[in-house]
C-alpha cells in the first residue's frame, strides 16, 4: 500500500471527527425535558385539569390547537369549551396561556428538546416579559 501510514492516519482523524457527537455525549445523557406546571394560576386551581388528560395533551396538543384554529377562524365557532365546570377559551393566546403563562418553561422546554420550531409566537403574544 502506497502511503499507508498517511491513509491510516487520515482515516483515524476522519473517524474521530465523524464520531464526535457520539463520544462527546457518552456518559451524561441529555437533560430530560421537564415542562413546568408551576404558574400562579395553576397553583390556585383546586382540580388541576386541562381540556384533555395530560398524557393526551403531551402527544396531541398540536392537533387540538389546529382544530381550534380551524373552528374559530374558518367556521366562526368561538363558543367556549366546558370541562369539569371550567370554561376554556378556544385560543392559544387567551386560553392556553391563561394558565400556562410560563412559555419558556412550558412550551419551549419540550420544543427545544425535540428540536421543533413552531411559529406560533411570530404573531401570537405570550404576555411574557412585557413582550409584544
Amino acid at each position: 500500500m502506497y502511503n499507508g501510514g498517511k491513509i491510516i492516519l487520515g482515516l483515524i482523524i476522519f473517524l474521530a471527527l465523524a464520531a464526535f457527537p457520539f463520544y462527546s455525549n457518552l456518559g451524561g445523557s441529555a437533560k430530560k425535558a421537564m415542562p413546568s406546571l408551576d404558574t400562579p394560576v395553576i397553583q390556585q386551581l383546586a382540580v388541576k385539569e386541562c381540556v384533555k388528560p395530560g398524557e393526551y395533551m403531551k402527544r396531541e396538543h398540536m392537533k387540538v390547537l389546529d382544530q381550534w384554529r380551524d373552528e374559530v377562524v374558518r367556521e366562526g365557532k368561538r363558543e367556549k369549551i366546558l370541562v369539569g365546570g371550567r370554561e376554556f377559551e378556544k385560543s392559544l393566546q387567551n386560553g392556553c396561556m391563561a394558565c400556562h403563562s410560563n412559555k419558556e418553561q412550558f412550551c419551549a422546554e419540550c420544543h427545544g428538546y425535540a428540536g421543533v420550531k413552531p411559529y406560533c409566537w411570530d404573531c401570537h403574544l405570550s404576555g411574557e416579559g412585557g413582550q409584544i
Partner: protein
Amino acid sequence: MSMDRRKFLKMAGIAGIGLGLGSDFILMSPAEASSGKGLPSSGERLGMVIDMRKLTNADLARMIDACHSAHNVPTLIPEKNDVKNEIKWLWTDTYDHTFPEQINDYHPRALKEKSFPLLCNHCDHPPCVRVCPTKATFKAKNGIVVQDPHRCIGCRFCMAGCPYGSRSFNYVDPRLYLDPAKKNPAFPTRTMGVVEKCTFCPERLVKGQLPACVEASNGGMIFGNLADSHSEVRRVLNTHFTLRRKPALGTMPSVFYIIGGEDYAG
C-alpha cells in the same frame, strides 16, 4: 342511441353555453342589483352604515385609534413617511377618492374637503376571495370576508384584486412599530410576509360587543344584520339615501355612506 362525432360536439357546445349562463361569471348589472331582488332575507349578513353628517375629524381620529389599538395595528405613517408600508384597517381619504364614480366639480367645497372613513367593504362578491390561491381569504356565513393569516402565503393577489385598497402587506416586522402603551395583549399581531385587513371584529361580536370603530363612533356608524328587515341598520337604510363605493364594479359592498346634503350648503 348512437351518436356521431359531429352531433356529440354540437351537444357539448350547447351544454357548455348553458353552464356558462348559469354560473357566477355573469355579474349583476347595477340596475339589476338595485332592484331589491337580491336582498338577503334570512340568516346573517353583517353590514354597516356610516353617517357622514355625524362624523367630525376628531371622531375619525378616535375611531381609528380604537381600531388600531384593539388589533395591534402598527403605525408606519407618518414616522417613516413610507406609503407602501402603511397598514390600513380603518383610514381616511377625500370624497373624490372615496367615490371616484361620483366626482362632480360643483359639489360643495366642504364636502370635497371632508375626510371619509374607509375600511374593508366585506363585499357580497369579493374579488379578493376569487383570486386567493390558498383560500386564506373566504366569505364566512355571516357575510364577513375573513382573512386567515395562518394560511396566507403573502402572494398579494388579493391586494391587486381589491378595488378599495383595503388590504395591506407586512413588508416589515409590524411588532417593531407598535406603540407599547396601546398594545392589546388579548389580540395577536401579524408577522412579516402576510396580508391583513379589517375583520369586522368577530372576537368582539361573540361577546355581544360592537366593532371597535362603531363603539367609538358616538352613533356615527350603525352596525347590524342586513338580512334582518327589523334591524337598526336596515331601518336606517330604508329611510336614508346611501352610497356604496364603486358600484359599477358589482362587488356589492356592505358598507354604506350617508352623505347628507343641506349640511354642506352655505
